[in-house]
Every structure is written in structure tokens, then in C-alpha cells.
């Protein structure tokens, strides 16, 4: 039983990488998938702006309150901006954005491709002579690689701004002090390391969602399973990748 399950997992991992390889090879037909790419850029990026803004605003605001509470016994509030900004750029911005995207976009991709699979639309592409990997998955991978980092920049900006506003309103910390703290202790690796993480997370969300939907079967039930699988696996993989990237970048 355990061996059978293990073989199943290894088979899935193998099929996943074969599908990704076939998708990347589709890059030679980039011009032909431009419409689908634009659609995915909109789905990944533009449509996610309200959700990411809302979530990162409140995350930034609560970060101010929590950090102030944690440092009040051993550090002056002048360091609040530095502490919040580091946490946001290194960890909160990329990870929070990725988890939101895994729930919103990863699930959406799995549901869309899963429905296309069970209604034979993917078979129809194959019969037309179009490789579904290059036509359907490559635009999603590109959209993930571009849009998740851009949304992370937005999330970082909104969270830090929200934090600064709350610091002023509740903790009476001047904006100039807050931003001076950020400036004094800023290291570019914190910003660019966070963005590098978000590029990897973007790939994970798009790839796991695509594979999950692509292999869906058993009608509506199968699409439901694919959607759940996409969110669970991509969220866990993001957290796992976050640890390893953290060790490599900041360890």
C-alpha cells in the first residue's frame, strides 16, 4: 500500500516535470499564444490587485501594533519602521501575496483547466494540432513569473504605508522617524531577495495549478478535487520553498 502510494507520487512528479518541459518548449510559438497570455496577465495581475491591496494593508497595520508591543521593553519606537519594513520585504510581502495567489489564481487555473479536461476541450486542442502544454500552460507560467513579483512590490508598498499611518495615528510616531528608520537599516538584499522569492512562488502557483487541472478526471468531482489539490499543494510548496530560499539568501 505504502509502496503503491510512493510509486504514484514519483509518477506524478515525473509527469509534472515532463509537462513543464513541454510547456517551456512552446516558447517558440509565443506569438501564437499572445491573446491567451494577455488574458492570463489580466487574470493573474490586474484582477488580483484589490485582494492583495486589502490583505497587505491590514497586514502592514497589524505589523505596526505587534512590533511596537514586542520591542517596547528593549528598543525605542524609532526602530519600528526598520523592523516592519524588513519583515514585510523579506517575508510578509512575498509569502502573503503568494498564499493569496495560491488561493485565488491557483484554484482558478486548476478549475479552468480541469473543466477543459473533463469537457474534452484539451483533447480538442490536441486534435486541432495544438500542443495544449504550450498553448494553455506556458501563458500561465509566464503570467505567474511576471505578475506575482509585481504584486509583491505592491503588497510591500501598501503594507509599509499602512504601517506608517497606524504608527502615526496610534503610536504617535512621526512619518519622518518611521521612514528614517527604514532608510538607516535598509539592505538591498532584503528587497531583491524577497522579489526573487516571489518569482519562484509565481512559478510554483502557476505550475501546480496547471498540472493539477491538466490531469483532472471524473467530471465535476474531479474538478473539485483538482482545485483543492492545487491550493493545498501550492500553499505547502510555497512555505517549503520559502524556508529553503530563506536559508540560501539570509542564512
Amino acid at each position: 500500500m505504502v509502496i503503491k502510494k510512493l510509486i504514484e507520487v514519483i509518477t506524478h512528479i515525473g509527469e509534472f516535470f515532463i509537462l513543464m518541459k513541454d510547456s517551456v518548449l512552446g516558447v517558440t510559438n509565443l506569438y501564437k499564444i499572445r491573446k491567451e497570455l494577455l488574458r492570463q496577465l489580466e487574470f493573474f495581475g490586474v484582477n488580483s490587485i484589490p485582494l492583495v491591496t486589502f490583505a497587505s494593508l491590514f497586514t502592514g497595520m497589524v505589523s505596526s501594533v505587534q512590533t511596537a508591543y514586542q520591542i517596547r521593553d528593549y528598543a525605542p519606537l524609532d526602530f519600528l519602521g526598520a523592523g516592519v519594513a524588513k519583515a514585510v520585504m523579506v517575508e510578509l510581502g512575498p509569502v502573503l501575496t503568494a498564499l493569496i495567489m495560491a488561493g485565488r489564481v491557483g484554484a482558478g487555473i486548476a478549475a479552468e483547466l480541469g473543466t477543459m479536461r473533463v469537457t474534452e476541450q484539451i483533447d480538442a486542442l490536441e486534435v486541432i494540432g495544438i500542443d495544449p502544454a504550450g498553448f494553455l500552460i506556458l501563458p500561465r507560467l509566464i503570467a505567474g513569473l511576471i505578475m506575482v513579483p509585481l504584486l509583491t512590490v505592491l503588497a510591500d508598498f501598501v503594507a509599509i504605508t499602512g504601517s506608517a499611518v497606524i504608527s502615526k495615528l496610534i503610536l504617535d510616531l512621526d512619518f519622518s522617524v518611521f521612514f528614517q528608520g527604514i532608510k538607516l537599516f535598509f539592505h538591498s538584499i532584503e528587497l531583491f531577495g524577497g522579489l526573487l522569492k516571489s518569482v519562484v512562488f509565481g512559478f510554483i502557483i502557476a505550475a501546480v495549478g496547471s498540472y493539477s487541472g491538466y490531469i483532472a478526471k471524473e467530471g465535476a468531482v474531479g474538478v473539485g478535487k483538482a482545485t483543492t489539490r492545487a491550493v493545498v499543494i501550492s500553499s505547502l510548496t510555497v512555505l517549503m520553498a520559502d524556508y529553503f530560499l530563506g536559508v540560501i539568501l539570509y542564512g
Partner: protein
Amino acid sequence: MDEVILKLLDLSKSFEGKKVLDAISLEVKEGEAVAILGKSGVGKTVLLKSMVGLLKADSGHIFFKGVDITRLKRKDLFAIRKHFGFVFQGSALFDSMTVYENIALPLEQRGLGRDEINIRVKTVLELVGLPGIENLLPHELSGGMKKRVGIARAFVTQPQIILYDEPTAGLDPVTGIRINHLIGELNRKRNVTAIVVTHDIRSATSICDRIVLLSQGKLVVDVHVKNIEKVEHPEFVEFLKSAKIQEVRNDKK
């Protein structure tokens, strides 16, 4: 007309230990219309999808104009599929695309110019009796309209062979007759070879030259439509009875 366009040789396929296709052999000649008849769940769609490599056979060979497609690399398989059209049971139109985009997609992939694509899309929509619906989305179409758009998409590339999976399933009789008429017209007037999977023997007799019966994984009957009265196989006779063609047969006797 006599050249073999598609040949299956000892084709077998199993799912989880259950043999669905058992050493199937079949030859289809250019311009011919062949119906694959069988009860639900007998493996007709599996057989049809195997013919274009959508399902990989466990053993056996499929030759398209002498080329064994079971041995082709992925890239070459995509190239050879351009000679095929496939009409899916549920139409399989792309939800996010309009009727025009659905039909134009295979032409765009072949690199045709916009003017040529526009002319071809307009022509096939007129052929299937649905002019002027280019801007509608699939969810705005009825079942019969979707089937006809599916046929238009399959035919727009001017394939040498079209495979139809239950083209009249779930349609009212009037629409069903219209679809049958369209398939027959493409076959006879445009000389497009047709393989039609169906469990409706009336459709099979009205469209096709030949009927083969798939039962328990094997092709147990292969008969010209003119000779269906002579077939003794009990399952085939059952189909005839169900379509009340049996009465005609008895009258003739």
C-alpha cells in the same frame, strides 16, 4: 476511392485490468463513411480517440496513409493530426472564445492570413446552416447549434477524415436528422472520409456505407448497409429491432 486511409491492426487497450479493445483490426477506405455501432460503455469512444492518438493503445498499430501513428514522436503526431477532424460528443467548444475564434483557431495555428480565415469561417458557418453567429459565445448556443459549430470547426481545415463521436446524442429527432444530413453531405459531396461512433442504428444507416459492431472489445460485425438484413448476430438484430427496422425486415421476408 479504393486507397486505404486508415488501418487498425490488432489494436488492444485495457483500463485497470479490464480489456476494452481486444485485437481490433479495421480498414477504412478514402471517401468511405463507416459507422461504429455499439452499446453504451462498450469502448466506442476509446476506439475513436485511439485512432488519433488521444489515447495510447497498449498494443497494435494504427496506420494513417501507411504511417504508423502509434510509433510517432509527439511533434510528428501533432503534424499528422492536421489531416484529421474530430467532432466531440459534447462539442468541446472553447468556453472563453467566440464561435468565430473557435473556428478560426486551427486556421490561425496553420498560419493563414486574416482575409483567408474570415472567408473560410463564413463559408463553413453557412455550410452548417448557422450564418451570422460569429460573435456568440458557446454558452449562448443550443445543443444542436454547438454540434454544428463543432462540425464547422472540424471541417474548416479541410481534413481528409473526420471522426464523429455520437454526433446526434442528446438532440431532438429533427436536429438529429439535420446533423446526419450534414455529415452525409460532407462525406458524399466533399469526399471527406467519415467514421461515426453511434448507438443509433438509424443514424448509422442514413449516413454510412458500412456498419461495424463493437461488442465485448471485438468487432463482431462488419457489413455494408445494403446487407444489414442478412446479419444474424443477436446484438445487431437487437439494434435493428430497437429502431423498428426489424419490422421492415420481416415484411421483406
